[in-house]
């Protein structure tokens, strides 16, 4: 009986803590309303392609193509992105387009730059397979020097293993 009495008192005290009681300055504290941060999305440069990827670091209407860890083959989930880029490439006429190969941070000096280049070459070949003239396409590898995300998470690393496309200015 004594145990139940103590528990009841404790519950009353806890529920009292959650009430919005003004402090001496008249400020109201309500921890329930100050929860974790809300999302912040920029949809201006995204495409719905069924890949489940909702980020993009290409420009001029192109979309980035993403790769597996240490890989440079184009996954089937990226095929819609390649098709989108092929259509876009045909629309830019004779303007030069740059494919920028990028890597996550898990590699060392030369090998990582070469891996970025292989990714750019895979995208160029995939565009050619779509029947697009790629003579105005140039490739460059930035290795791990151009991350778009620096958080130590798998999703962040995945955003950095990419090929970006943009017009040469």
């Amino acid at each position, binding site marked *: 009986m004594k145990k139940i009495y103590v528990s009841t008192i404790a519950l009353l005290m806890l529920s009292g803590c959650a009430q919005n009681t003004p402090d001496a300055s008249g400020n109201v504290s309500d921890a329930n309303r100050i929860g974790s941060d809300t999302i912040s999305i920029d949809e201006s440069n995204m495409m719905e392609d069924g890949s489940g990827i909702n980020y993009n670091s290409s420009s001029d209407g192109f979309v980035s193509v993403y790769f597996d860890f240490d890989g440079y083959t184009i996954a089937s989930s990226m095929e819609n992105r390649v098709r989108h880029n092929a259509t876009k490439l045909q629309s830019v006429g004779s303007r030069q387009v740059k494919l920028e190969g990028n890597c996550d941070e898990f590699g060392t000096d030369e090998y990582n730059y070469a891996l970025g*280049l292989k990714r750019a070459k895979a995208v160029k070949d995939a565009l050619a397979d779509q029947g697009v003239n790629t003579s105005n396409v140039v490739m460059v590898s*930035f290795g791990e020097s151009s991350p778009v995300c620096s958080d130590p998470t798998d999703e962040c690393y995945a955003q950095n293993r990419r090929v970006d496309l943009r017009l040469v200015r």
Partner: protein
Amino acid sequence: MRRLLLLWTVWFTTNLLAVDATLKIEKDVEQRARIALVDGSAEHHEKFFDILLSDLKISGHFLADGNVYKGSFSDGFIDPKLKSRDYLLKYNLQLGSGTTLYIRLLRGADGTELFKKSYSIPDTAKMPFVAHKAISDINAYLKYPDISWLNRYVVFTRYAGKQTSEIVLADYTFTYQKPIIRGGLNVFPKWADGNQRTLYYTSYKGVLPTLYKIDIYTGNKSKIISSEGMLVCSDVSKDYSKLLLTMAPHGHADIYELDLSTGSKKRVTDFHGIDVNGKYVDNEKSIVFISSRLGYANVFRKAIDAPAVSPVVYHGRNNNACDTHDNKVVYSSRESSSSFGSNTFNLYLTSSRGGDTRPLTTTGSNQFPRFSQDGSVVLYIKQSSRGSAIGYINLASSQSLLFPVSINKIQSIDW
């Protein structure tokens, strides 16, 4: 605060050294000369003392007493407790508008002066180089094997932001650091001459990566070559007339040899995967390089004028960087298979013909191995849970040193 930093440095170094303690000790400790430092300066400079001590230690020729002894610079008095040392190095450091150093090498037993010299430079930032020069001069006077690599610049690239980097000069302890090329993405610096007056580097300023040669004293710069995709100067021949380049004119990285006198290029490898990191071996008749031709990064060897390629390393699933000196090969090997996060990379020493392989490190992530100019010491970058450090392993004496560094991610390094 300085004392706290020093204590942390000692703790960090000692802990990291402890984990590489499996190194084989090849040189008998008793063969090294016992030496003590006697500071005759008006004010003791801890950092300078530490640098002198590091120089003596990594030389592999001295057993240096780590205690600080103060005493008169000019007289021949020897503290009785120091008479058992083979040598005493008395020094007087004066820092003002520049750096001035006076040194005297005395015989421990009787105080006989063996060698004396003074150094003066109009710069205090370059103080570490004065210490290095003094120790290498003493080493030369005693006719020990050359350690003039102490005096060389280390050049490295550190990332400063997205597609932004700095090429930085440092002394081997990284106490001295000076950015010499800033702005944009400039990577893969490589010394272009024996006096470290000029260096090659790759600039991403234009549409295509371009290799430049720059005089670090005048800033005079000349374009060497451009390539689509990527371009790296991986090695320079001993007479500085030829370069081994990683280029990608066909969309994948291959190794080329560029003759600077004629401008002619020779394609050394031809593989539709990744071939990078070409290094001369066998009197520059062959190269050792990193290739993905087995499906993962590994070390291979190939004669420049013959097609056959053979593996040099038969262990590890990711051996992605190497350096050579004559026929010695040092490479980093991934020892764990975590896709993300921290992996263990260790350094191994082998020969270009394969055979005997010796581990140089045992824990942490050890990468960017580079031989000193004489091949006697290996530089590397160590990452561990305790932080980053630049490390040195003297291959003859198995002495190793680590200097904690707090800099952004290093992209490439040369020595």
